[in-house]
């Protein structure tokens, strides 16, 4: 067909959402495309023009604006625009201008509508923000079911298999060659349908037993059998196997129950491998559960510090197994809390029992159960009101010092803002803490709250939990009635804004400036956490976790319908991107950080990230409007 020569199909097929289309649909587009050239600086779409085509950038670059003239997006080769208008009333809402000499393909509305109808992914892609974030978040949720690891994941080698007539000597030679500690014995034909299978030539085989290293000792050498003995004569008739889709846990139980160390793994009656107890132990060593129990078995701070590398290994494994960011965050927080608790136990063993009751409080990400692999420590001590500084503070300072130094050695670096129990200001009796919080809420200024907002994520880690609960109650009671406080917090929450998106290999800022990388925490997850915290404070929620806070907010009228779900999706996606890029850092032997480089962002991730940034940006605008400074409210 002549249209193929024009290479339109090939070009479009390289870019989303066209890359997922069938060849027939791509041909249908190429057949109908109209082409136009735009000189640098010329207008492509003007506000309220009628638009009847989807615009595709064949070459060049285009900027899209909001109706007030604010930059909305910068687009390059393979990007599309105009779909929002086509899905609504065909009036241009976002004007567009060529910022380089640009060649555009116009895809007529009829073709566009056909694509939306016939290709679900295409329809998802062009629908604004919510569906794409939702799909991305749901896909992550689906893959969580994989958390139950199947035993087949532990198999690395194909099993060594011999016929029953093979001599034990030949069998031993084959095992040595394959470096296997067990072999499977097969015989032709078969009476046991559980283990009968057909090979490629259609011959029926049946697995009749397993012979392990120790069997060679006990059944052959110890019995004085000659090397020519057929393996069929010595193989144990007792055959314990496991199906390949059983969980690692089931495999472990089977071994314990039957007192065997080798298990043939079966897929559709056919052996696909042999798993040994050591495979399971090696695997379990990297699990979070094992790590936590190991933390509590350490008898010194040095021992704890040696576990730091296990934390990374267990993080990588969780991500690979498809955990979502909530699971990763809460697992890492549990691990962090375990380190802290163990250090406190060790400190108490060294210093003796505490002179007055205390609560070791954690703040920031650990309190929210959203810890990442790149983190510092934020903690404080709430002491009983019986605390007498002259008599008791030496003890608590020493306690705080042991914990803080210990955590630093385990990879939780000292807090740059000095939010640590070693700081006298943050090592105070409950009554003083109450006063702190009352003062922050009654006399707020954005400057004063800048460094104290971290205390509004607070949770008990060890000791008298009710001290922290008292403070949580106080906050939940006072904050909703403190508009000035909420306004000051809101002001601070707008200090960090998300970028607009990506353009070629750059991160593009709201003002159109381009950067080489983006700190996803500073520009994404942290502003989102700040924003959600304010709504949570306003509605008196006592939840600390961002997603739980959003659930609480969703039950109120604070946000428009569906907004809290949308924020939840966006948050999950931002966190997950950060987690994924940290995993890549670790796997490539780099120090994990919060930065992502646009060239490492896949096309689909790029579009979803842009949507998430957009959701955050809109939510920030709403925040300014929802919690105005009272002075503004009087209209001065």
């Amino acid at each position: 067909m002549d249209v193929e020569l024009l290479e339109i199909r090939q070009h479009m097929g390289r870019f989303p959402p066209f890359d997922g289309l069938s060849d027939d649909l791509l041909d249908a587009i190429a057949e109908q495309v109209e082409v136009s050239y735009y000189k640098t600086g010329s207008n492509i779409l003007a506000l309220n023009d009628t638009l009847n085509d989807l615009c595709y950038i064949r070459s060049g670059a285009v900027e899209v604006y909001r109706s007030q003239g604010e930059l909305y997006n910068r687009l390059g080769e393979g990007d599309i625009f105009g779909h929002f208008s086509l899905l609504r009333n065909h009036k241009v809402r976002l004007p567009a201008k060529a910022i380089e000499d640009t060649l555009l393909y116009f895809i007529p509305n009829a073709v566009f509508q056909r694509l939306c109808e016939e290709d679900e992914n295409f329809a998802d892609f062009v629908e604004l923000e919510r569906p794409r974030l939702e799909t991305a978040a749901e896909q992550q949720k689906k893959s969580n079911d994989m958390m139950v690891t199947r035993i087949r994941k532990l198999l690395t080698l194909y099993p060594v298999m011999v016929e029953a007539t093979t001599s034990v000597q030949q069998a031993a030679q084959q095992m040595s060659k394959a470096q296997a500690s067990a072999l499977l014995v097969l015989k032709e034909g078969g009476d046991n349908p559980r283990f009968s299978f057909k090979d490629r030539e259609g011959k029926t085989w049946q697995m009749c037993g397993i012979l392990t290293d120790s069997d060679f000792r006990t059944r052959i050498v110890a019995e004085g059998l000659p090397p020519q003995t057929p393996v069929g004569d010595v193989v144990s008739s007792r055959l314990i196997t496991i199906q390949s889709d059983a969980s690692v846990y089931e495999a472990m139980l089977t071994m314990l129950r039957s007192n065997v160390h080798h298990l043939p793994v079966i897929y559709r009656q056919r052996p696909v491998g042999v798993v040994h107890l050591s495979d399971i132990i090696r695997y379990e060593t990297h699990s979070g559960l094992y790590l936590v129990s190991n933390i509590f078995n350490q008898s010194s701070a040095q021992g704890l510090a040696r576990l730091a590398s296990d934390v990374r290994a267990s993080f990588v494994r969780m991500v690979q197994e498809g955990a979502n960011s909530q699971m990763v965050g809460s697992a890492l927080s549990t691990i962090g809390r375990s380190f802290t608790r163990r250090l406190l136990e060790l400190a108490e063993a060294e210093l003796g029992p505490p002179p007055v009751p205390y609560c070791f409080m954690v703040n920031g990400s650990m309190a929210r159960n959203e810890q990442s692999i790149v983190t510092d420590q934020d903690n404080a001590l709430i002491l009983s009101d019986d605390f007498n500084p002259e008599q008791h503070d030496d003890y608590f300072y020493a306690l705080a010092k042991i914990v803080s130094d210990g955590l630093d050695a385990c990879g939780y670096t000292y807090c740059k803002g000095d939010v640590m129990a070693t700081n006298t200001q943050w090592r105070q009796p409950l009554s003083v803490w109450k006063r702190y919080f009352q003062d922050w809420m009654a006399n707020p200024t954005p400057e004063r709250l800048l460094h104290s907002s971290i205390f509004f994520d607070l949770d008990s880690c060890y000791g008298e939990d009710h001290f922290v609960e008292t403070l949580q109650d106080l906050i939940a009671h006072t904050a909703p009635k403190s508009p000035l406080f909420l306004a000051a917090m809101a002001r601070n929450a707008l200090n960090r804004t998300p970028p607009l998106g990506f353009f070629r290999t750059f991160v593009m800022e709201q003002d159109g400036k381009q950067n080489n990388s983006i700190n996803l925490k500073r520009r994404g997850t942290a502003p989102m956490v700040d924003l959600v915290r304010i709504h949570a404070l306003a509605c008196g929620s006592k939840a600390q976790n961002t997603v739980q806070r959003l659930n609480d907010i969703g039950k109120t009228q604070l946000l428009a319908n569906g907004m809290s779900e949308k924020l939840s999706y966006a948050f999950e996606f931002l966190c997950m991107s950060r987690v994924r890029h940290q995993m890549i850092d670790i796997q490539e032997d780099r120090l994990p950080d919060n930065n992502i480089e646009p060239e490492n962002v896949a096309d689909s991730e790029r579009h979803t990230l842009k949507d998430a940034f957009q959701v955050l940006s809109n939510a920030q605008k709403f925040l300014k409007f929802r919690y105005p400074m009272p002075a503004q409210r009087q209209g001065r």
Partner: protein
Amino acid sequence: MFGIRPRQKITQADWIGYMAQRAQRANNPAIQQFFSTPLPDPETPIAEVPMVSLDMETTGLDERRHAIVSIGLVPFTLNRIKLAERRYWVVKPSRPLDEASIAYHHITHSEIAQAPDLDEILDELLAQLAGRLVVVHFRNIERPFLNAAVKARRGEGVLFPMIDTMSLEARLHRQTLWARFRRWLGRPPVSIRLHTSRSRYNLPGYQGHHALVDALATAELLQAQIATHYRPETPLKDIWC
């Protein structure tokens, strides 16, 4: 690669008068129909002129010795190039293909063996061109080849005004004072071939030497030239030749 000899220069100061005259004298109905379809007035702003980009692949450069092997065309306006209305024909040349030209435009003997004679598609071709301003890159191929081929088959030729993107490029790069100064310095002249011209306007590179691809490439080039050096209001008479 091919011998070029001087040929009769075709210029027509009064295209409208010429077309009317030919319409009266024409014997062949298709040709009569072609010439009596009115062309836009020379004063018409270029933005309002219906155009058609035309490209031919030939077995050589001399219409007296060589023949047409394929024809591609794409109707367009300054605003939009309408690919849905594109046409493309392979035709059987009246003279044999030589291997050198096969290497050039990749049309093979077997493709040509099944192709119709130009005469069979001529009515359709003329109907596509009628009433539209034909745009080519280097008119000294399309104009004499089409004229000669039609004359051989229907007893009378076709000549009509064209916009030549190559001569627009030459005006900018070969006929300015700066260009003459460069020539005086002995610098090679700026290339005005289709694909180098396109790159000056940041148009993407295409696989060349296919009549349909080149017709699209020429239409895009004209859009870029007008956007860069002229205005949508520029009258047709300033651009055609």
